[in-house]
């Protein structure tokens, strides 16, 4: 049996999903769109799976999320719907419930956060509410695990009995009620043939028929006119247009249900606490300084303290493991080619990437805590005004900030954005935020060429990346993503302590995700780079890389880079190697110039002049993201071709910018 989990954003849906399924869940995308699809089996019910649908406020199709939810329910025909409702904000949440009830699918209402309602002296008459809505209502607290087993029993029961909602009249007598009835009456026979609930079809026709019911129901011209006539009559009688009248009808019904079953408590403790905290965290003068302080703290802890420590530990571990394996292999007298493949290829390449795992996990740990406490929505709240100028909303700000750490988790973090358009645009902008792997390149070049103004030069590079990103966003906003942005309608949930279990589950998921990639795409990429640098054009195994295939290709495409001021094949080869990971740029330069990392700043002035060094820095700042990031981009954009497009356009942008810098610079100097 399949159950669909449907509810508003911030109503505890993910917490309930985790409580229902434990950790045996599967994450993917809905077919055709890049909206996350999570599904898993219910604990101890091996034949029951739950699909976590995107958090939405209404089934009306504003964006991909609502369409995904609606189409899943209509086309995949789940055996039952678990509708989760935040009991502390019950009026608004029940709006979606009423729309779900119109679909006439077996449904159970999970009334979440009942502990909070009780804690503030409120109560809900569950029996009365259940009678009025015609479905089973189960009070739960997803965070505390209360009521979960009752909920599972109820939904399994509803699904196996195929219990449709008992109440069909979800409105009070009046013009709207009459209109729905007369339209439903007109289409009843047609709807029955198609197996669609006639009241649902009637409401869709009144609202404006986005499901093309007129054709699907094979309505005659006469019937269509009849429907339009009764809608206009209703609008006149009610004094509201059709959409307002229908929304009003639902809220009117909800008010009646709540009056009969809900006793509101005193003002919630959680609310009061959040209000107090918000006075500081979103205060006029305090919000932005505190935000900068928090982010600086997170980055500092991630990149230099905790993540850095574990990362170094892990890479030392991998290195010594590589040495042991290398010694064992040479002791075994294995063919040196294979030995090099294992040690220089797999261990060096995959090891370099895997050593990022701690940094990614630590970063995600902090960010998911900031997200789960409700702070990130505040960031979106006070940053919205800035991002609106480039056609994005405040929600895109956080992934972009993460991009300064590493593009991979940044791209993964766009999953939290609520519209597909914003997600895609943000993904495209992230590579312009200089990731931490570029720091070694910047540091060594700035030390070699601008020793007096190193910090200034590095800061400028970060700013150049952001400025180009903004320009690209403005262009995208006028071209590929011209469509209207999804309205910025958002809630600031109360601050909550994050659930430790949810954070751990998320980390496990990200780790699996990352390792899976490290051992597939990245393994292939490092093997290719290894092959290119270990064989010559006649495929003989070589130790001097200046005769390697990599050098050959480097020399072959050097003319492309000549207009940018670098004609040394070693430079071009380092850029090719940079595709596997940006750290490889410096590594390759040091290998190919046969100098240690510490001597590089004395060797580099022989390969570059000041202007070509700037041109090179601009190029490395802007050109293709590394293979791991490209793979993440591919997954978020849902297409390999689009990811390839990102690679090509980034390279073109980098080339143009470097060309401009080098040539304008040559003219001026």
């Amino acid at each position, binding site marked *: 049996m399949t159950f669909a989990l449907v509810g508003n954003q911030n109503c505890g849906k993910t917490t309930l999903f985790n409580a229902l399924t434990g950790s045996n869940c599967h994450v993917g995308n809905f077919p055709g769109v890049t909206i996350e699809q999570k599904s898993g089996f219910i604990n101890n019910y091996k034949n029951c799976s739950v699909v976590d649908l995107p958090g939405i406020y209404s089934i009306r199709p504003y964006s991909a999320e609502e369409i995904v939810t609606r189409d899943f329910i209509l086309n995949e025909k789940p055996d039952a719907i678990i509708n989760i409702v935040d009991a502390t904000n019950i009026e608004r949440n029940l709006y979606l419930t009423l729309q779900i009830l119109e679909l006439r699918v077996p449904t159970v209402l999970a009334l979440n956060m009942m502990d909070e309602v009780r804690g503030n002296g409120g109560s809900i008459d569950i029996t009365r509410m259940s009678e009025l809505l015609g479905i089973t209502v189960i009070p739960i607290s997803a965070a505390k695990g209360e009521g979960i087993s009752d909920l599972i029993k109820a939904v399994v029961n509803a699904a196996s009995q195929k219990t449709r909602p008992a109440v069909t009249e979800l409105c009070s007598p009046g013009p709207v009620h009459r209109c729905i009835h007369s339209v439903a009456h007109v289409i009843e026979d047609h709807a029955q043939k198609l197996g669609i609930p006639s009241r649902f079809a009637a409401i869709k026709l009144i609202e404006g028929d986005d499901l093309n019911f007129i054709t699907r129901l094979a309505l005659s011209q006469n019937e269509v006119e009849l429907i339009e006539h009764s809608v206009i009559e209703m609008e006149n009688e009610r004094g509201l247009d059709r959409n307002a009248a229908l929304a009003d009808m639902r809220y009117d019904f909800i008010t009646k249900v709540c009056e009969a079953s809900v006793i509101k408590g005193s003002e919630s403790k959680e609310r009061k606490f959040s209000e107090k905290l918000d006075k500081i965290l979103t205060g006029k003068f305090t919000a932005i300084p505190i935000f900068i302080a928090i982010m600086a703290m997170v980055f500092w802890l991630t990149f230099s303290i905790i993540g850095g420590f574990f990362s170094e530990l892990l890479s030392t571990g991998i290195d010594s493991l590589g040495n042991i394996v290398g010694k064992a292999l040479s002791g075994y007298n294995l063919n040196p080619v294979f030995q090099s493949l294992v040690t220089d290829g797999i261990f060096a390449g995959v090891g370099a990437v895997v050593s990022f795992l701690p940094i990614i996990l630590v970063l995600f740990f902090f960010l998911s805590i900031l997200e789960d406490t409700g702070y990130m929505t505040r960031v979106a709240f006070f940053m919205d005004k*800035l991002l609106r100028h480039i056609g994005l909303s405040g929600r895109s700000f956080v992934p972009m900030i993460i991009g300064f750490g590493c593009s991979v988790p940044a791209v993964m973090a766009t999953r939290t954005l609520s519209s597909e358009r914003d997600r895609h645009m943000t993904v495209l902008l992230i590579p312009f935020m200089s990731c931490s792997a570029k720091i070694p390149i910047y540091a060594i070049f700035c030390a070699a060429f601008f020793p007096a103004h190193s910090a200034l030069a590095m800061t400028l590079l970060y700013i150049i990346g952001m400025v180009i990103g903004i320009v690209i966003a403005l262009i995208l906003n006028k071209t590929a993503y011209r469509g209207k942005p999804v309205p910025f309608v958002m809630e*600031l949930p109360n601050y909550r302590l994050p659930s430790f279990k949810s954070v751990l589950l998320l980390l496990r998921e990200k780790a699996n995700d990352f390792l899976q990639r490290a051992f597939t795409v990245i393994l292939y990429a490092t093997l290719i780079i290894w092959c290119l640098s270990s064989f010559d054009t006649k495929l003989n195994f070589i130790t001097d890389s200046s005769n390697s295939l990599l050098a050959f290709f480097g020399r072959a495409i050097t003319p492309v880079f000549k207009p940018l001021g670098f004609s040394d094949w070693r430079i071009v080869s380092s850029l090719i190697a940079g595709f596997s990971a940006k750290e490889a740029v410096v590594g390759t330069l040091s290998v190919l110039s046969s100098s240690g990392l510490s001597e590089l700043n004395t060797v580099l002035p022989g390969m570059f002049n000041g202007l070509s060094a700037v041109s090179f820095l601009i190029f490395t700042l802007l050109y293709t993201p590394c293979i791991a990031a490209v793979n993440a981009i591919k997954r978020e954009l849902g297409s390999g071709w689009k990811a390839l497009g990102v690679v090509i356009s980034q390279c073109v942008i980098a080339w143009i910018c470097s060309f401009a810098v080098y040539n304008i610079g040559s003219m001026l100097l």
Partner: protein
Amino acid sequence: MNLDKLPIGRFAVIRSVNGNSTLRLRLLDMGLIPGTKVSVHKVAPMGDPIEISVRGYELTIRKDDAALIELNEEA
């Protein structure tokens, strides 16, 4: 008066939700319907967006969008 101009803390009743976009439908679905009581709860540090109270909860919307909501002034 329109909702973007309503001073913080004062209550008013919605007269109409204008505009002809998906935004209007979304606002209706969120419970901003003619006859509903609203107030402005707080304003973001840069002056936009605003947070409004409606039907017992708080909702963040942009000022441009709030301008689409006409109010009847009333205590």
